[in-house]
């Protein structure tokens, strides 16, 4: 009889303990969750990979400026550039520009003579150049406001389409790049496009100077 009672009490005690422990476990489990919720947002446990970082090595830009074509006057030029920055020093730039030319002095003086048709007075060029950045630094607009800037020089080759013919063109350029933010740059530069043509009968090498003002975005 006594053993019976003992058994009953023991069973009751054990079930009570078991449920109590289970409850306690549940409770403590909940407590952990709440703690984790408070702690985890602060420390993110994850590995860092370079591929997760956004790389901004490309630059796309637009420019306007003046292109002086030897013997054919000076006109507005506009164009697009696309660059890829290989290192902090070197970059490659592809550029495409369009402009038109005026009448030569001879055409103006002689009256009716027209050397080129209207279509042939359109000039366009493209080139691919390798550039070098140098003299990096900061300019201070005021005591607290400063901006990054640097100079660059470049050398490239391409084609000029002018008077319904293509001319192989070498380009030499230099400029100043001013960064409003690290992804928006202002470009003030010059280019010299040099090619040889025979429009006046004899072969003649001309260098057409271009001054540019451009904006570019890094992406």
């Amino acid at each position, binding site marked *: 009889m006594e053993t019976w009672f003992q058994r009953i009490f023991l069973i009751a005690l054990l079930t009570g303990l078991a449920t109590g422990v289970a409850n306690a476990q549940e409770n403590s489990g909940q407590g952990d969750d709440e703690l984790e919720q408070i702690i985890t947002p602060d*420390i*993110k*446990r*994850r*590995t*860092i*990979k*370079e*591929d*997760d*970082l*956004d*790389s*901004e*090595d*490309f630059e*796309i830009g637009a420019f306007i400026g003046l292109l002086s074509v030897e013997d054919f006057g000076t006109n507005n030029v506009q164009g697009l550039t*696309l660059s*890829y*920055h*290989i*290192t*902090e020093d*070197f970059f*490659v730039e*592809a550029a*495409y520009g369009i402009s038109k030319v005026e009448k030569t002095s001879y055409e103006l003086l002689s009256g009716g003579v027209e050397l080129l048709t209207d*279509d*042939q007075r359109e000039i*366009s060029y*493209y080139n*691919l150049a*390798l550039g070098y*950045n*140098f*003299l*990096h*630094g*900061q300019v201070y607009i005021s005591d607290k406001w*400063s901006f*990054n800037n*640097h100079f660059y020089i470049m050398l490239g*080759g*391409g*084609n000029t*389409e002018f008077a*319904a*013919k*293509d*001319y*192989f063109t070498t380009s030499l350029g230099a400029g100043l790049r001013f*960064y409003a933010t*690290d992804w928006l740059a202002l470009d003030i530069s010059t280019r010299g496009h040099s090619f040889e043509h*025979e429009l006046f009968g004899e072969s003649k090498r001309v260098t057409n100077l271009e001054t540019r003002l451009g904006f570019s975005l*890094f*992406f």
Partner: protein
Amino acid sequence: MIASVSGFRLLRVYIAILFCGFIAAPAHAQWFSNWFTDEESQVSINDAFINVYSGPGRGYPIFHVVERDEIITLLKSRTTWIKIKTRRGLVGWIKREDMQFTLALDGSKPEFPDNTQADYLVDRFELGGAYGDFAGADSLTLNLGYRFTKNLSAELRFADNTGQFSDSRIMGGAVLFQPFPDWRVSPFFSVGAGKIKTFPSSTLVQTEDREDNLLQASLGTYVHLTGRLFLRAEYVNHYVLTSRNTNEEVNEWKLGFSVFF
């Protein structure tokens, strides 16, 4: 004559767009995924200090240092520089190589592998430009390639040749085989085919534009310069299958640069 030239101008614009899209595509994929995820990459400094520059270049002034155990957020990278933000909101640039002196917040080393030549051998796009001498004419070539295996790649080529008596444009495709891709100076040979369109100079009378098929065989070498930049020198034998009685053979020397993505 003029009409066909302006027709080709359209083609040229098309190539330019293709060119832009092509090289931007791999970069964009990453860019987009970063645009939509808002996770920040944070590391702590595991060295006495790291210099913070005002811009992504060694010529910019060092205006701050981040000290041991300080936590910084990595924002983006440009060439070999990483833009960071300190806990106090200060923004600057650190050298990529200084990432070895940092730890991720779980204590692991950040994975900033040193890219070697071998990393550009498989599954890579190649973009290159070259200058050449095409039988007296100046030639400019743009090539877009894709490397399937260490040894084999396929590429598209566009060339603009401007000469004294005629201009020509070549569009073609080629298969390129590189037997020793791991060498710093790594030779290759390739075979290809395409079309050449010739525009005789307008000052010469009684000439017509011609379009002919063309076979190309070339021998050349890549020279690894730095990171993803390679020098590429090439000797190309063009075999023009003309509609006249004799076929024409043109040899070309080319020198240019290639970038792998």
